[in-house]
């Protein structure tokens, strides 16, 4: 893990599996913390106190991000903000391109989403196909007053007319580059990393929606590929 580097003291640590594949760090734990604090305030500002806001994280890593946002918003407003998770696996349009994926958890707050302002939360916004699937999934849960989108990283290359309302960081990437998000709750480490195109994976071109170049190191995202 700890490779001897002269700049170890200044550069944030990069997980060994990512370092080996040539990833570099773009956001560290405190950057992520600041971005989330700003987004939390933006949501409250734009929704005038967030009285009817329900946060729904998209598994895997959207869920801890939604929980962190809810915690920050609750702290500012001194009341609990409803938060849950929305699994989109069964609604994906790329299901047939790979083995069936392991399902994530859907956990809708008890009060439901009817008439609420739902803010979907995900880690990386790329093609927009996950969000399209999330809108379909949400439609079967209830009828929100409006739906907004918060993402930690927007890396561009949209394939659908979808735009985030709250963005932690805009990260210009080439389509082939890989973006990896690591969160303490799931990975034990924290950071956003960008790596070079993965030449070992050729299937990527067929499947830009939840692409292999996005985080191939974590089996959880490719649960079906066993």
């Amino acid at each position, binding site marked *: 893990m700890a490779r001897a580097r002269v700049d170890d003291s200044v550069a944030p640590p990069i997980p060994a599996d990512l370092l080996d594949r040539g990833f570099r760090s773009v956001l560290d734990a405190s950057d992520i913390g600041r971005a989330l604090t700003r987004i939390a305030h933006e949501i409250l500002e734009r929704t005038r106190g967030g009285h009817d806001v329900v946060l729904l994280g998209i598994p895997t890593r959207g869920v801890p991000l939604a929980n962190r946002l809810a915690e920050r918003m609750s702290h500012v407003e001194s009341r609990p903000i409803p938060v849950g998770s929305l699994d989109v696996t*069964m609604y994906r349009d790329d*299901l047939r391109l*790979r083995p069936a994926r*392991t*399902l994530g958890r859907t956990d809708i707050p008890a009060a439901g989403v009817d008439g609420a302002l739902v803010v979907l939360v995900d880690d990386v916004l790329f093609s927009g196909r996950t969000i399209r699937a999330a809108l379909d999934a949400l439609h079967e849960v*209830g009828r929100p007053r409006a739906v907004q989108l918060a993402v930690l990283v927007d890396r561009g290359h949209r394939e659908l007319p979808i735009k985030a309302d709250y963005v932690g960081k805009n990260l210009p990437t080439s389509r082939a580059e890989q973006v990896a998000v690591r969160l303490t709750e799931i990975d034990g480490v924290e950071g956003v990393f960008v790596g070079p195109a993965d030449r070992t994976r050729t299937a990527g071109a067929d499947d830009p929606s939840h692409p292999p170049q996005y985080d191939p190191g974590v089996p959880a995202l490719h649960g*079906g590929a066993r």
Partner: protein
Amino acid sequence: MMRHLLSAGDLTRDDALLILDTAAELARLADRPIKKLPTLRGRTIVNLFYEDSTRTRTSFEAAAKRLSADVINFSAKGSSVSKGESLKDTALTLEAMGTDAVVIRHWASGAPHRLAGWVRGSVINAGDGTHEHPTQALLDAYTIRRHLGGVDGRRVAIVGDILHSRVARSNVTLLHTLGAEVTLVAPPTLLPVGVESWPCAVSYELDGVLPKCDAVMLLRVQRERMQAAFFPTSREYSRRYGLDAARLALLPEHAIVLHPGPMNRGVEIAAEVADSPRSVVVEQVANGVVVRMAVLYLLLGGGEPALAGRAAEPAAAAIGGGW
């Protein structure tokens, strides 16, 4: 990759746990106003039933429909089978209509295996003769897991007509794969030849086994498969192997009672036991739908099946040879 589900022995421990976990997530959707998922839209599943069945056929039908698949129900009665059409010709006819999966129930052991060699789609065994019924074993494991928190290390007694029971065969294999300790309880005449080689214990006495059980699974006495006298009278069977209120009291507090149905009340299970809170028979039916949804999703939902299967594990030993 596993394309068919023919036998509980095809499943690795990871496969089985993946199915049970997927079923658990799908069960959470069951209390939503809209239960339907779009996942298998445009896929066609044929229910090919050569034997009478209420719950298995409707359960598969409900599972397929909740995943938005198109379902064609085919039963041997009132079809060309009664004009003498062979299984192979029936299968090829259905295949020509563009089916993605065939769910087959057949009176002949091994029919699903034969079918798997003839069709391009997935074949799911919904019970073949006295051989296997893997989705029943999965739903039983799912039910045990829900009530007892897991299957690993749990003690399960399977009581009754083991000889004719595909449910018992599939359950012994699957529960063993998942780490449970299985005891078969039956009169010697209703135990198959070679049962010593199965990965389970065998007992002829129910009363001694009950106090050490976390779950008891009762099997129906299958008169339609019995060509000989296996026990003197059903009253005598009931007296020695039927679960009545007195025997229910021998079970530990937390133990549950399962029955794959249909029940012969008063023979293998007393009416007051069937209706007692310890009985999870009705819940098994509900669990059957989500477990079958999970199987259909994992076999058909992706571009290729998500289950690895035993073939992927060269070291995996076949369980219970001689079945």
